């Protein structure tokens, strides 16, 4: 696809661009994944948001053993590994790390960056229950975030700027959704690998460029004809899908199966709902980013997430579920058990659960065997 080439061209020079932007005095605001940090606030104060979403490599995980205990989520441990190694240029450019604290695993990233680096870390909490108390607490947190961003950047967040940022972020979400929904039936018009690449790119690319690329792609895909599906249709879900963690995707696509929809708590843009600007903007942001967002497995209760994945499986007419989680992410593991039971009752389609500690040498072989067997099983059922 030409747009993907255009994207890669842009990303090839994006780091240099960000360095130049930083030299001009703009601030680079890093933030933890999970979907609870409204980028709109960062844009509205003239800064550049960059999500910490790098992953998939064994070395940062290995290095992290000298800095943080092993029994925490792989992604969370690796973040101090990437920073210590200094291999990830984006991580070296961050002026402030914003940490929405969802669970203890995410908190450990904030603690490690506080203790082992010179980067300032700002935290606010994501309550675990969606009700009036949780909403108000989260809204307070967003207001504190706003104050912090304003004082850090020296730029007030004016309503007009915030409104404009919301409109652009909404547009991005709409385009992602439009592109994603082209896979609802027939042969997927975009591969999962490309779709995920677009997601990851959106976390550090230039927003205007990204919107243009997404717009072109949406038009292009909309013009394509539907083909008869070939290959099994897979829903790909789990805890975190980091940028660089491609092995499962590669194996699955090589096996002939098609991932037609993805849902991850961290690593993919949450494009399922927009900010509704109908009054106070901060309240609107809190409503979208907390109340309306599908809750993570660390929420209490958390059935909403499982029901949403089930709905996706039905809407996208999948033949099987590939559940991919990282080691020691407790909530995701418990969810995998709960979901397997719900799935059996509601859809009775196969589910394969894989867990990874980003040990490439030890995992690729067994993963390949299991995924190929899974795809074969689904193929026979079809």
């Amino acid at each position, binding site marked *: 696809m030409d747009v993907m080439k255009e994207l890669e061209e842009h990303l090839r020079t994006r780091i240099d661009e960000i360095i130049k932007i930083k030299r001009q005095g703009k601030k680079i605001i890093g933030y933890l994944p999970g979907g609870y940090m409204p980028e709109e606030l960062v844009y509205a104060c003239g800064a550049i948001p960059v999500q910490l979403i790098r992953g998939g490599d064994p070395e940062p995980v290995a290095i992290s053993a000298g800095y943080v205990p092993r029994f925490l989520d792989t992604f969370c441990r690796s973040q101090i590994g990437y920073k210590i190694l200094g291999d990830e240029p984006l991580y070296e450019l961050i002026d402030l790390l914003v940490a929405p604290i969802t669970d203890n695993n995410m908190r450990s990233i904030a603690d490690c960056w506080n203790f082992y680096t010179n980067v300032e870390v700002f935290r606010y909490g994501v309550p675990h229950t969606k009700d009036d*108390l949780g909403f108000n607490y989260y809204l307070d947190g967003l207001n504190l975030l706003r104050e912090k961003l304003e004082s850090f950047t020296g730029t007030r967040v004016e309503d007009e700027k915030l409104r404009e940022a919301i409109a652009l972020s909404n547009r991005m979400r709409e385009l992602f959704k439009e592109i994603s929904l082209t896979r609802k039936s027939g042969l997927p018009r975009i591969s999962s690998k490309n779709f995920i690449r677009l997601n990851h790119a959106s976390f550090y690319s230039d927003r205007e460029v990204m919107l243009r690329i997404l717009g072109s792609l949406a038009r292009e895909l909309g013009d394509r004809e539907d083909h008869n599906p070939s290959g099994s249709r897979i829903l790909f879900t789990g805890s975190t899908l980091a940028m660089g963690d491609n092995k499962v995707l590669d194996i699955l696509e090589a096996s002939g199966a098609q991932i037609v929809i993805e849902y991850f708590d961290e690593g993919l843009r949450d494009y399922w709902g927009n900010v509704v600007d109908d009054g106070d903007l901060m309240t609107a942001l809190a409503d979208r980013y907390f109340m309306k967002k599908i809750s993570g497995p660390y929420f209490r209760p958390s059935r909403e997430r499982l029901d949403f994945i089930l709905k996706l499986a039905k809407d996208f007419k999948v033949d099987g579920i590939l559940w991919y989680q990282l080691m020691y992410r407790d909530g995701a593991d418990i969810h995998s058990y709960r979901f397997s039971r719900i799935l059996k009752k509601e859809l009775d389609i196969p589910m394969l659960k894989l867990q990874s500690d980003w040990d490439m040498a030890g995992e690729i072989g067994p993963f390949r065997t299991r995924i190929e067997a899974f795809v074969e099983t689904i193929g026979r059922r079809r």
Partner: protein
Amino acid sequence: MEYTELFKICGYELEEIEKEKPRIDKTFEMLEIGPKDIERALKTIPQNFDIELDGVRKALRIWLEELLNLMLAKEEGKKLIYGTAPGFPCELLEAIRVAAPEKVYCSNPELLLGTVLDSMFGKHDELVEVAEGHGLPPGFAHCSVGEAKLGGVVKKYIPVPDLAICMGIFCDQTPETEDMISEVYGFPEPIYVDNCLDLNWDEWDKIPLRKIEYLASRVRRALDRAQEIIGVEITDDHIQKARVNLFRTLDGIMSLYGLLENDPIPISVGNIMPMVYLYFNPVAGREKVIKACQTLYQEGRKRIEQGYAVVPKGAPRVLFTWLPNIDNSVVHIAEQAGLVIIMQVVLWPMEAQRKPRTVQGPLLRLAETYLRNPYICGYGSVNMQWIREASEHYKADGVFWYWMYSCRVQAALNPIALRKWITDELGLPVLILEGDFHSTREYSGEAARTRIETFAEVLRARKADKSN
């Protein structure tokens, strides 16, 4: 079934055993406790605890009493309300009990079962193994407290409550497990007491009012739900009474830690742990816990007068984080190696905790108290400050950071960073031991013996250097 000897070593008189026989028989039947388990308990209890001490026997008796109370509460016409281990804030269930002591029984069943079934009967691992086949598989470092709960539910050891209150003020795994238990195993949907661990690194001594109010509101909602169940209003008075009861219990426990400031120490810290865990678990009447503490204290004082020494005089003294409630072998090995374990993180109040509360009203003050606790609210920087203050106060020679590998809170507290900080800032040796407080399948004192003994050698050598 013959269990007289067992109950006697746990402080019961013969007439009391006779009187309680129907309840004991029923409870043991429900928990599938048989002659082999009792035989094991008769060996395990004296290994774990110094049963010559009347105070220790009183504590063990309380654990057994509470086990009977838990298993028979519903049959005996009480409403059953659960919290979740480790039970913070403890005052929540205590307030419910104080409001209607005849109508309700409150418990953290996994803590109760874990303590009794394992430290006494060695049956805890059966629960863990069951849990591993029902949603908490091995190899994922799932919390063994949650595993005990799930295993107890699946085996129908744990009675279905009328209300489940899930205390997730610093823990994710407990609420995640409770959510699953209610969905899959038909327990009532819990009400969650929530908190966010979002204090910034350097702000640990300035707890914002919004955090205090949020936690207090969550506790109040849980109390409101409990009111509906028990049909009795739970007032600020009840909350205040609960706070006083727990203060007094803590006072009793701290007096026991005071005995450990003597050189040589007259009792092992392992004998204090049953009291500590009774602080965290609701009991049908706090007075008996306070009495057990007082008895043990008097016995300790007597031993001091007699010159009794658990560890020789002049032994190095270490701060520690937490100790298992099911296996005292780590403590015994440390003491045999010549170490004195003097104080644990969650209990001794640092300066920021001793400052007057900034809010009014028992519920808000309760919330503020918990938010100031370094261990409970799990802030790395706060734990560093605690260690600084405690090491100065107790003239500690080292730190024994024993942490539960399957606890994400304890992992996130980051013993590796803490060790670096303690070594660089305070110059104290640190032993980090990874373990499991509620299951001995993978971690045991024996496995750590060499490391503990080596650590003790290092501390003795340093102490000798200093005195020269």
